[in-house]
């Protein structure tokens, strides 16, 4: 770790995102307001009004247009950023495929918010997980610091593999909650994140070519393979960039899954995002009560950390997968993915899926203790449970 002096500010998760976009020297922001994301782009507008940044801000009439404008900007070689939530993200869906298909390293913050109806503005991961197959990388932040660090790392990873990346934070739990964030002096950010080197130069008029043209059945297939390989490469790039970030700034992100007290754990809680902060606290409490438990926080959901899941699963007897999301007709999405990663391998822990916190339902240390008790019983039976447990359900 270099002995630099961080800039400490007490900010919300949303402001952390805005500061990171500024420090990343983003050139174009096109965005549309939606709760609970709005204060990200409001803060960026404030930076521009104060003359603190040279960002070109494009006001648009919808999220679909916001992403379309970012695609246009990114295709010209600019560093583009936007932010949204829930229904706004869903409206962008078509353009998300365009961004990855055209291999544009746009970075977007999605503030996880439950999908309507019924209307909700509270935390739920289904909005971002429903974009799983769009070719975007996904990083889930546990706290405001990880929002800031995540945006900076995302640009570096995205611009290396030429794929877009989503940094995801929780509605209100992070977006509107203030915490100390250590920001990095501009010159050190610049060393970590040099200007982008685009794949192609649209402004080279001596060599005209077209972007977004037709790909017949004779060529489409190969371009999809290129994206698949870029995602594979991203696994290595994410780890390298995460390690480099740690060496430069003291916070290491060299693994795609963060392990907490898993060394001698009989079972672990596996999950995404801010709820894993509560889980870590619960692990300390449960350890003091005699449970041999740990926590495994999946930082990067795309690309999926198959190898690290396998390494973890070999060492534990059970995995309790906590999903603040649900795929109707199946189960929690992280549960499906985790089982998929372990199919046919030598690691076959007992697994159970817990559906928690949908639509911002409180999820506390006490809840995690109850889940630990249930998990102990499940492991005594010794078989993976096929049914997801709707943990909070009011049963009369």
């Amino acid at each position, binding site marked *: 770790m270099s002995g630099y002096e961080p800039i400490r500010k007490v900010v919300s998760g949303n402001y952390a995102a805005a500061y990171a976009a500024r420090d990343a020297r983003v050139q174009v922001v096109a965005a549309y307001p939606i709760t609970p994301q709005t204060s990200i782009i409001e803060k960026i507008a404030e930076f521009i009004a104060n003359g603190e940044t040279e960002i070109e801000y494009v006001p648009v009439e919808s999220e679909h247009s916001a992403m379309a404008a970012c695609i246009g900007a990114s295709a010209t070689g600019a560093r583009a950023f936007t932010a949204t939530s829930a229904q706004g993200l869903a409206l962008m869906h078509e353009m998300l495929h365009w961004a990855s298909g055209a291999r544009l390293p746009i970075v977007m913050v999605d503030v996880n918010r439950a999908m309507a109806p019924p209307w909700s503005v509270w935390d739920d991961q289904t909005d971002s997980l429903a974009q799983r197959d769009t070719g975007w990388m996904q990083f889930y932040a546990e706290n405001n610091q990880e929002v800031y660090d995540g945006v900076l790392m995302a640009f570096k990873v995205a611009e290396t593999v030429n794929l877009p990346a989503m940094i995801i934070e929780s509605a209100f739990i992070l977006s509107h909650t203030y915490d100390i964030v250590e920001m990095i002096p501009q010159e050190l950010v610049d060393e970590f994140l040099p200007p982008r080197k685009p794949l192609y130069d649209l402004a080279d008029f001596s060599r005209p070519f077209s972007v977004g043209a037709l790909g017949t059945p004779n060529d489409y297939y190969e371009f999809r393979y290129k994206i698949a390989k*870029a995602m594979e490469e991203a696994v290595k790039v994410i780890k390298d960039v995460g390690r480099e970030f740690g060496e430069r700034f003291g916070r290491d992100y060299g693994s795609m899954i963060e392990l907490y007290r898993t060394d001698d754990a009989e079972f672990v809680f596996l999950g995404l995002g801010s709820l894993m902060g509560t889980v870590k606290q619960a692990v300390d409490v449960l350890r003091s009560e005699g449970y041999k438990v740990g926590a495994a926080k999946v930082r990067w959901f795309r690309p999926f950390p198959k190898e690290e899941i396998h390494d973890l699963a070999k060492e534990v007897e059970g995995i309790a997968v906590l999903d603040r999301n649900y795929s109707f007709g199946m189960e929690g999405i992280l549960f499906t993915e985790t089982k998929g990663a372990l199919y046919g391998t030598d690691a076959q822990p007992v697994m159970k899926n817990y559906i928690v916190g949908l639509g911002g339902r409180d999820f506390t240390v006490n809840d995690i203790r109850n889940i630990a008790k249930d998990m102990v019983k499940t492991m005594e039976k010794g078989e993976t449970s096929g049914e997801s447990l709707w943990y909070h359900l009011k049963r009369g």
Partner: protein
Amino acid sequence: MGTLFEQKSAARKITLRSIEEYPEAPVSLETTLSNFTGDWRTFIPVIDDGKCVKCYICWKFCPEPAIYIREDGYVGIDYDYCKGCGICANECPTKAITMEKEEK
């Protein structure tokens, strides 16, 4: 491809034979002239100079544009890019252009 007079395009048809030959992003390797849209044609326009009155309405309407004016003042068709849409035949006031099934 000439928009007015007969000028052959210097573009070449690009066929990519292995994954290594593909660009990383789906962009064309040259201008769209390398996309020889004449391949798409089912019906081919055939011109009868005897009926042509050199009004050039076909030249004006061709959306590609794949109709050019020959040195002798009659019109010609750039079959590398003519998609066979038939607009020229439909617009021709003297029925000098007919669409025929193309055998390939």
